[in-house]
């Protein structure tokens, strides 16, 4: 695998949009060609080379390309967005849309990411070692198909609205989350190892939510079923099992009504 190393050399006055930083775009390009790619600041178009030093070179294919992005990236949006294969490693904190609409490959963010990380994710592996903002793995505005597939792991805390309209894949948050987990969820699995607040599983149709810590206020549409012993993300424990949201429509399969499942660790 060939590696391209990008190091931010100049901070933008406003913010940079860098959706070109993906193995798919870099594949088959030399350092000079990569430096000539576009980045955007407001209504101006600049080259990547004006803001980053570029070292190394890309592989012939995206799958064979690894990108390391270094420096203070807190004013840089869209790193790794829409990537389908290959690898991106972010050494530091990045801003909004990190790994948004990602379809495959591996993205490792060694630091915090801004809001909308993994938005509308369709596949691949997104791992954030720090904290994430709001709308982690949620649907893009107006889209009823949120995260479809892939694994989105955050070691720290996440904000509100995680997994909105989620239909598949897995979100694992190591720490605490803010309100609205899995709103309108229609599939997939959300694991919160820390505490939840309230509005968990509201309008949920299908899928699973596991909360290891506390829940401040339960949604009224969740009914307790029984205690179950489960192994969740490597942890064996007893969980209270609830079904819901009983205020929401639910389909049937083989004569059985399909509900969303909420598991709260004892």
């Amino acid at each position: 695998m060939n590696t391209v190393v990008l190091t931010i050399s100049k901070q933008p006055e406003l913010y940079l949009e860098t959706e070109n930083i993906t193995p798919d775009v870099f594949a088959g390009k030399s350092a000079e060609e990569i430096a000539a790619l576009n980045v955007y600041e407001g209504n101006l178009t600049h080259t990547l080379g004006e803001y980053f030093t570029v070292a190394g070179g890309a592989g012939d294919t995206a799958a064979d390309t690894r990108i390391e992005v270094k420096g203070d990236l807190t004013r840089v949006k869209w790193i790794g967005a829409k990537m389908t294969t290959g690898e991106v490693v972010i050494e530091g904190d990045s801003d909004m849309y990190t790994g948004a609409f990602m379809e495959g490959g591996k993205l490792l963010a060694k630091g915090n990411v801004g809001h909308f990380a993994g938005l509308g994710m369709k596949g691949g592996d997104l791992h954030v070692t720090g904290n994430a903002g709001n709308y982690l793995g949620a649907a893009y505005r107006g889209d009823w198909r949120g995260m479809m597939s892939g694994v989105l792991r955050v070691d720290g805390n996440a904000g509100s609205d995680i997994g909105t309209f989620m239909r598949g894949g897995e979100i694992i948050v190591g720490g605490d989350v803010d309100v609205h987990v899995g709103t309108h969820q229609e599939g997939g699995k959300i694991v919160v190892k820390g505490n939840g607040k309230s509005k968990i599983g509201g309008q949920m149709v299908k899928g699973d939510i596991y909360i290891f810590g506390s829940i401040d206020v339960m949604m009224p549409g969740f009914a307790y079923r029984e205690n179950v012993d489960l192994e969740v993300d490597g942890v064996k424990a007893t969980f209270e099992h609830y079904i819901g949201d009983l205020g929401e429509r639910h389909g049937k399969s083989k004569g059985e009504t399909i509900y969303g499942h909420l598991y709260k660790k004892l």
Partner: protein
Amino acid sequence: MTKLVTDVVCPFCGTLCDDLEVVLSDDGKKIVDVNNACAIGAMKFLHSQAEDRLTRPRMRQEDGSWKEASYDEAIEYTAQMLAKAKKPLMYGWSSTNCEAQGVGSEVGELVGAQMDNTATVCHGSTLIAVQDVGVPGCTLGEVKNRADVVVFWGCNPAHAHPRHMSRYSIFPRGFFTAKGHRGRTVVVVDPRPTDTASIANLHLQVEQGRDYELLSALRVAIRGNPLPDVVAGIPKETIIEVAEKMKNARFGVIFFGMGVTHSLSKNHNIDIAIQVTRDLNEYTKFAIMPMRGHYNVTGSGQVWGWQFGYPFCVDLSRGIARYNPGESSSNDLLVRGEVDAVFVLGSDPGAHFPFNSVKKMNDLPCVVVDPHITPSTVVADLHVPVAFVGVEVGGCAYRMDNVPIETHKVVDAPDGMLTDEEFLEGVLKRVKELKGV
């Protein structure tokens, strides 16, 4: 002899009353009195008559004092500021007509602006919810003529839309509502005992920030599923009673305001309230409507809807229209330092935005177009006073139920003053020259 102008439209709140009468002086130049309007509506007309009103633009000096400028100078300054900016914010667009909103959109497109209107701190969350799940709506005329169950959720029309209740929602006798308020069941959901709540048949004093849970509980009750004993501070018996009242309505409507759009859960509150409405349509006819504030904020969403496909938070910086409240919303843009110039028209963010945002407006080049001296003009570098839309110039406005109504000119603006539209036309012409298009 004074002159009486009838069928005047009130350009203040989203109720857009169209039955006002304005009494003019003998020469037809001065407004003497306003009939039929509520107190805030009448004041809008009478304010335009203030003796000390500004009639020419004024530019901030180095020492902080103001200096009078001509409209040409104001146009030049505005055009230069917008054309030079990498990412200008063009905010407001609510207390003006659709014609001005149209010209403003053209300017925004040319300079790659962030276009945002007052929905951003008001019913923007409603617009997000409507985009997510759709909306079963109706007109205010249908409410007047048909509604027998009226729910006010997180809104207080007694103060914010004073004639709403008498013209449409509670008191009027309509075609199928001959008994007026005696034939209507009024439910108010509000943590506070408001004046609107005082005339309700039922007041649910929901716990602050738990509207989402209560709306969800209504859905559970409508489906006949089991509920916890108390939800959001309301006993389950009451929730079931309200659900039954709603199911048994002949025609019901939920009006909602900023008590739900900007409390915890925001767009999710509206999303689930729309779902409640949709559930009820399995049993009867039910509609839901936001109590829009500024008289033509709805119009600004309409104009941008047809121009750009999005009703607020439109990001034109990359030559296409993008939209994502949370990123392209005015306060996020200002607080995060995403914009480098601010243009305000038809709103007063200085009074409504958080202090951190207003501070940024103060630090950035800032033009405010407003007939009044406001908290926003205090942080502006250029203040452009203009004619009062709906009083000194007519134009199209959209009522809160999305019905377009043509407003009328009642008197002339002071000599030589421009309207919003004329000022923007000037800016557009100059921006075109600067951009070479």
